[in-house]
């Protein structure tokens, strides 16, 4: 049975990520009452207490609203990693190169980035890290992506001693505060893409960092592995599950039983994360299709077969429904730089 965490189960230590958001708000003269409104944390954050993901999300949302400044999410991101989560944070700091850092981040995501789950894909000379919802917060999604991307960029810059030539894709239109992205992330930005992802030349993955020590890194990873793992949020667990079973046409009933609950409970739990089974499945299938287009250079026929569709026409229709675009324009853009993640040129012009 698959382990997962509900939206309202207290699971995040209050002294970690939630305390960070609260402190940031306080340092900008926002009263506690405004920051903790509707979180149910009327007594403040006790140091050894646990906070549920939905409470943490509400706290973040309050902070963003109270400060009403376009740089809040970026400044919060700067503070986020490596974090103060003992062995897991230590494993990040000890990473001897980018590859180990990214793999550690993905392995301990439930502890280090409980709201968004990073996933690493590499092929050819490209390393791609993309962020999927771990808790589901559609209205906060853009701010969360800004925050997590900034956290990782800042951490790499700190550990590596230099700015990495990241390129960024955003599953949203061009924002009004693009200057914040340019300064905190980098100038290579694409908006209107199908994924929230950051790419870097794979050559950077194994370049040793200053102060790197393989041994210290190994020990830190062992220590982090020895600690009991934290359970990921339901959307993150479901994404992993669906990605693994995407070729078997997963159904709600089958998935619910693999997650150890009735379909009705499963539905209700997903609803608490502001999502539903079909939406999650469509997202996974979109990502797999994009990956096949890009990495395998697959045509519609092959992708349809891979995902268990009757024929290419059927797949084409579904793909249009998932993304708003037919596979044609996306594949046509693949030859361009960053192409596979971007919309056709017209839609990306704002970037």
């Amino acid at each position, binding site marked *: 049975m698959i382990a997962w965490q509900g939206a309202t189960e207290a699971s995040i230590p209050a002294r970690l990520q939630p305390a960070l958001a609260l402190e940031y708000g306080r340092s900008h003269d926002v009263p506690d009452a405004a920051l903790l409104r509707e979180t149910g944390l009327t007594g403040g954050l006790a140091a050894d207490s646990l906070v549920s993901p939905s409470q943490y999300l509400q706290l973040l949302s309050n902070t963003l609203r109270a400060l009403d*400044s376009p*740089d809040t999410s970026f400044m919060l991101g700067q503070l986020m990693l490596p974090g103060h989560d003992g062995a897991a944070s230590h494993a990040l700091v000890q990473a001897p190169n980018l590859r180990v850092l990214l793999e550690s981040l993905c392995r301990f995501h439930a502890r280090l980035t409980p709201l968004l789950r990073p996933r690493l894909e590499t092929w050819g000379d490209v390393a791609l890290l993309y962020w999927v919802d771990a808790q589901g917060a559609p209205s906060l999604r853009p701010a969360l992506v800004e925050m997590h991307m900034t956290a990782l960029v800042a951490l790499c*810059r700190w550990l590596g001693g230099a700015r990495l030539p990241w390129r960024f894709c955003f599953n949203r239109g061009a924002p009004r505060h693009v200057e914040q992205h*340019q*300064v905190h992330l*980098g100038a*290579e930005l694409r908006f209107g893409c199908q994924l929230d992802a950051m790419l870097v030349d794979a050559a950077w993955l194994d370049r040793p960092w200053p102060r790197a020590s393989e041994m210290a890194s190994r020990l830190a990873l062992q220590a982090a592995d020895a600690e009991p793992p934290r359970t990921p949020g339901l959307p993150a667990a479901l994404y992993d599950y669906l990605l693994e079973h995407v070729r078997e046409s997963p159904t709600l009933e089958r998935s619910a039983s693999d997650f150890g609950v009735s379909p009705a409970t499963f539905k209700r739990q997903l609803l608490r994360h502001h999502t539903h089974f079909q939406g999650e499945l469509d997202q996974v299938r979109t990502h797999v299709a994009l990956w096949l287009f890009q990495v395998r250079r697959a045509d519609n026929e092959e992708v349809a077969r891979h995902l268990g569709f009757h024929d290419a026409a059927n797949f084409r229709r579904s793909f249009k429904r998932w993304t708003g675009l037919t596979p044609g324009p996306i594949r046509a853009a693949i030859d361009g730089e960053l192409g596979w993640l971007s919309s056709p040129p017209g839609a990306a012009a704002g970037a």
Partner: protein
Amino acid sequence: MNLVIRHLTVLVGLLLGFALVFVGGGTAIPLSEWDGMDIVSEGGTALLAAIWCMIVLCSRPDGRVTRLLAGGLACIMLGSWADCLDEVFDIGKVALWDNVLEALLPLGMLILTAGMVYWRHEQANLSEHLRKRERLFRSHRPFDRITQLADAAYLREQLRRERRNEQPCALVLFDIDDFHRINREHGQAEGDRALQAVAHMLLLNLRNDDLLCRYAGERFAVLMPGLTQQQGDDAARHLCRMVSSMRHHAGSRRVPVTLRHGCASAGGAPDALLAALCRQMDAA
């Protein structure tokens, strides 16, 4: 409030004084021979002029213009009051003082006119001053909470305005080197202090026409109207030297602060221009 009472006392005192002079110097005309219309219109003029005088005195700071305006109105008030009293008391034709008092009305009008001329000058000066500050920037329109500078949105607006101009204009971006390290090692509050220090240093070394903005994070932008790219680049080098010679301290530790810059000629679409310049900054 004290001042209001004082002004009011003076005005009422003057009016009463005039009335006393007329009571002493003339003989009362019987009620049946009063010309009601004249009395109402002249007395009303005096009363209204008194109100205008009070408004001027209470709403303006003391100064030449204020004194001229108030004095003119006071003379008009007294002249009309003398006229009005003239209707009630009979003054002999030989008494010159009565004519002199009535001449206060045209005199008041002259003084009021002079006051208005000076007032117009004053207004022109004020709006010139405001216009300069608007163009100029500085804390006039604080957008950014930390540095009190304009933000990127204001910069884009000014760039769009600059596009319509014929004269050259340079745009420079500045980044603080290794700023992230100040934030990590000393905390964000120290980082904010460093930003303020750099903003001050840049401001002190800018021309009056330049516009300094905090673009985002540790990136500043300076718009230099009238300068070519080459001149802008020279100016930017100077600014970098000035900032690097500054001694900034975090607690008791000295933190070296240096800048790097990128320069372009302003023109073309602001968004594309800024994106290209940011790319240049990343590569630097």
